[in-house]
């Protein structure tokens, strides 16, 4: 699509063209974020395509994706910038005798000696980019506070250098699995998007987009079964990626229907916990037809 989408359907079409099927609200919020220059806070269960959304947006807008993966203990040095002290030392030694301290001091705290990390990278980029701050809920609150300046004004203050302002307006996405409550200050600066598991029809579309060779009736049965599995209280409900994997597996096996035997054999593709396996086999497996082939076909 054109690098400058001018309406909600244009964003939706752009995302669709790069293989991401957005729900209505997803396209709308993405468009608003783009227009207003506000970050999006994307929340939802694991595996509903939060990270994928950022990747697809980058592709659709024809921008580079800068990604910062968050984890416990992530700090400024790893996210923002660090002084390249080895280079600074070399510089001091090379100058050595002649130069006065003032000259050297001015010199060694220049941009040349800055090791830029993802966030700095995003700010200083010449081309507009998409910045993805993944799993923000994994970091500590202090790190969140540090992000505030970046998110509201797109600038970073470095004590020795002064303020670094963004040259272009990046599209920023923050994802969270809701493992802890984010601060009000952070939420206030973002648009909020809740991504949930897709509806049956929507998921069918997604599966068919990624595995077009799979038989239509099998694909339909597949998403129905996935829907049933998600209703159970599982440690880890199957994500969209897992339904696609399962569809691929069924295609490889040449399945013509999802029956109880096949389900039991391929269960490990969608359920990844031992206790979950038992629950699913007990609750969903029995609801499927025991007999393969013709009997099953008529039912769907």
């Amino acid at each position: 699509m054109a690098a400058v989408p001018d309406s909600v359907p244009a964003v939706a079409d752009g995302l669709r063209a790069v293989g991401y099927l957005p729900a209505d609200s997803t396209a709308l919020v993405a468009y608003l974020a783009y227009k207003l220059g506000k970050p999006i806070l994307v929340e939802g269960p694991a595996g509903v395509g939060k990270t994928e959304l950022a990747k697809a947006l980058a592709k659709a807008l024809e921008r580079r994706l800068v990604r910062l993966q968050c984890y416990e203990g992530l700090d400024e040095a790893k996210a923002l910038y660090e002084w390249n002290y080895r280079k600074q030392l070399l510089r001091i030694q090379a100058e050595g005798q002649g130069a006065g301290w003032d000259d050297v001091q001015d010199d060694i705290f220049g941009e040349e000696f800055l090791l830029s990390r993802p966030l700095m990278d995003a700010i200083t980029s010449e081309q507009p980019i998409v910045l993805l701050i993944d799993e923000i809920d994994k970091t500590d609150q202090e790190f969140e506070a540090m992000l505030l300046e970046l998110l509201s004004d797109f600038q970073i203050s470095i004590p020795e250098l002064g303020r670094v302002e963004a040259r272009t307006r990046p599209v920023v996405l923050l994802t969270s699995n809701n493992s802890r409550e984010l601060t009000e200050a952070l939420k206030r600066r973002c648009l909020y998007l809740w991504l949930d598991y897709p509806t049956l029809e929507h998921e069918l579309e997604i599966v068919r987009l990624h595995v077009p060779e799979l038989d239509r009736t099998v694909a339909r049965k597949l998403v129905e079964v996935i829907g049933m599995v998600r209703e159970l209280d599982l440690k880890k409900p199957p994500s969209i990626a897992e339904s696609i994997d399962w569809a691929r597996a069924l295609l490889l096996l040449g399945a013509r229907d999802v029956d109880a035997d096949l389900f039991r054999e391929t269960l490990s593709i969608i359920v990844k916990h031992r206790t979950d396996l038992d629950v699913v086999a007990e609750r969903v497996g029995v609801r499927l037809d025991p007999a393969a082939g013709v009997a099953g076909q008529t039912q769907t």
Partner: protein
Amino acid sequence: MPVRRRPDGRPPEALPEGLAASLVEFAEELRAEGVGSGTAELLDAFAVLDEISWTAPEDFREALAATLAKSQEDRRVFELVFERFFFRAAEAAAIREGVRERGGDDGIDAAHTDIDLDELRRQIAAALRGGSESLMRDLARLAISAFARRDEGSGVIGVDVQRIRRALGLRPEPRPALPPDDPRRAGLPREALRRFEALLRRELERGQIERTEQLPPSRPLSELDRALPSGPLQDLAAVHRVVAQLKRRLKTQGQETRGHRRHAHVDVRRTMRASLQTGGVPVDLRFKPVRPRRPEIYVLCDVSTSVTSASVFFLSVLHALHDSFRKMRSFVFIERISEVTDVFDRERDFRAVSEAIGRDAGVADVSGYTDYGRVWSEFRELVEDDLHPRATVIVLGDARTNGRDPRADVFAEIAARAGRTFWLNPEPRLYWNYGDSVISSYERHCQAFECWTTEQLEDFVKALARPAHAP
């Protein structure tokens, strides 16, 4: 602070006068219901409305939600307030302008003078299994007019909604007795049924407003409205989520206290010993090391019939606590007490745990009624040697003794031995000490909390995380 940035610097006058005022009012109402939307959010809402065509209802709602409701719970409240607010706003405008949708007996009523109830039932059931919103609304109106004709209206909207639903035979449970082609046979989806009820309620309200030509008083959302629409399974997941969040909060909370008290306590003994090096002058102050509190927890959970509805909640709390605290022993009781710590260690799955407890705990003896007196004595025997001032005892129960001796003296003894004792009661405070509830005699020896929602659970865990001798 410049919170809002407009790319082109246009003033926000593009919106019609009335809408701006309504939006501010709407934000007020959201705040009144506890959604924290500040001025910054409101300004954002105006900014997004510049970007979309605000005559498209779905986009309008989504755009507002993206700026005003910043969590899933907020979103839920947002939906309800949005419905209520704009419904009322539209009706108020209709009264002001004198707009009436249908006058007397023409229009939709006349077209269906003889509404075939069976056909209507069938159609509604079919619509519930995958019909559009507008189809369902039309059917809701039909149903209302069909029942208005039979003169069964009670005048109370909530009662009427349930009457109509019952008369239509809409139930979520499967009913194998019906003929195979009836869409109600396999049971109706709960979510759709709830939506249909909401439509019925709204159409009834609309009719009432039209008749009386005034708006009924706005009614605040009840706890029930706010609760996420969910079956019991999802409730368990919610408890787990809360406890998982709490676990994280507990961690950070502990650190806060450590920071505050870092220089608070001088360790006199170690300071004196260090001062020997400097000739008895305490140059070097030694502080008491601050150890993170590692609570040792004993949980007693009532699983008798009087708390049946709450015991699933309790068991899931127990299960979630078990995941969070390493040093924890769990007990369940009815007439007798039984330790189930190893059940939780062995089984990671909640369902298996509750089954195992039901099967082998052997807590019901003869009558199946709770006997607190006996439970305390048995508990004291079981853990007498292990209880110490760093331990915390938590009781989950309704303190209904069924007329038996409460033995508050034994409970007091247990509470005295343990560092802290808490009581979580699943009954609203209003019912405490009413009937055979003897919570007051226990409350003297422990801190009692009302606990039947996840928020109340949160309050409690905050109290639990607080250091024992905090002021």
